[in-house]
């Protein structure tokens, strides 16, 4: 049930621009300031992944949700309607690669022992809703406070990535690290940072303009730059390849 990442494990995380390295391991810059699948507002949490594509897909999904909100003008309760998003639907971010000084043990939520211990249902972790996080946040609370006589208290969660499409023999996963209350950030070392551009285009790959009819929300493209080295391939992913700076790649994100 408990899994401790080996020393030197490289993690990836996407943040907004304007973030500095100390922000990255303090939860700042996440899409989850307002709470997320495994954290409530004010529960400092760092979402990361060993697979860079998972970090990119998860971030792109939330970018899509926010842009869709602007496209629609917000819920009917919003007065006045939210402004239109600027077009084309291009956004700039940072992709960070780092190691943790002492990666804490994390609870693998799909492990049968964890399922038995915390009494959660496997499909709850794969629920595609991006608004209904009550049950997973409660599950995270249970993990945070679970007393275990033979093991240290878990410092996080290993959970399936919902937004990254799985492939045969490979389950994309996220590490969700809890930032203890008494520290500003989890101690770690920056390995590299790339600038990351994400774009939602139409099905033919053209920029979205005011005249665009269909936006291909499920297949954003992205490009990295700002570092000479490519983003390394994540070996466990079948057919993984490195992401070369200056080259555009298309990925898929799951909405349901």
């Amino acid at each position: 049930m408990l899994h401790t990442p080996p020393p030197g494990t490289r993690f990836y995380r996407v943040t907004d621009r304007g973030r500095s390295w100390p922000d990255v391991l303090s939860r700042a810059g996440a899409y989850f300031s307002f709470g997320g699948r495994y954290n409530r507002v004010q529960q400092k949490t760092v979402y990361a992944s060993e697979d860079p594509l998972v970090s990119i897909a998860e971030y792109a999904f939330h970018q899509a949700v926010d842009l869709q909100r602007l496209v629609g003008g917000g819920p009917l309760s919003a007065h006045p309607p939210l402004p239109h998003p600027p077009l084309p639907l291009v956004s700039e971010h940072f992709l960070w690669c780092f190691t943790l000084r002492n990666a804490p043990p994390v609870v693998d939520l799909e492990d049968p022992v964890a399922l038995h211990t915390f009494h959660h249902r496997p499909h709850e972790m794969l629920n595609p809703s991006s608004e209904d996080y009550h049950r997973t946040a409660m599950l995270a609370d249970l993990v945070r406070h679970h007393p275990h006589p033979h093991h240290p208290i878990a410092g996080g969660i290993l959970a399936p990535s919902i937004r990254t499409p799985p492939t045969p023999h490979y389950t994309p996963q996220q590490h969700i690290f809890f930032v203890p209350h008494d520290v500003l950030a989890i101690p770690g070392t920056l390995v590299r940072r790339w600038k990351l551009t994400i774009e939602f285009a139409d099905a033919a790959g053209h920029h979205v303009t005011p005249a665009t009819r269909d936006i291909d929300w499920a297949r954003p493209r992205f490009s990295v730059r700002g570092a000479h080295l490519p983003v390394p391939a994540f070996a466990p992913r079948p057919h993984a390849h490195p992401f070369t700076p200056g080259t555009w790649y298309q990925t898929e994100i799951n909405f349901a």
Partner: protein
Amino acid sequence: MRIYGKTDGLAKKFDAAYPGELSARLRWWSKTLGIDRVRLLRMMGMSARQAEERKGEDIKEMLKSPDWEANAQVLEGGLHRLLALFHYDWHALAERIHGPVAETAQEEPSRVTRRKGEVKRLRYTPDGDASDLLINRMAAGGPQSLSALLAHLAASPAGAGRAES
């Protein structure tokens, strides 16, 4: 390809302009988006009375309290996320929040006609304070927070915070 250079240029400008320290960041947001001090403190979770009483205090001192610091981090994260959606063009975001587009947007009718006659549209909670509702919604978290944040900013008079910083 020009658009990518433009968005990267705006992001670079933001990288350079954005302060590193939390209280400086809040002052930067106040100035940039025209958020008056009371509204800023309300968005950090203070009651209307608290915000009014503490509006003259040094924000750096205020953030020495872990609770207010945590609340400020949540707010800062939300504002940051909002600006990222607008290509980091803070002038454009401020204009969209306070500018003519928002002001001249066609008002929805305050009364709507239904099959069984005319009924008063329920805007927020009966006799509720719209500002409180938006703040509660922001604090509740989730995707609705962004809408609430934008709506709360839009209610701020243009240029309100600019004189303070």
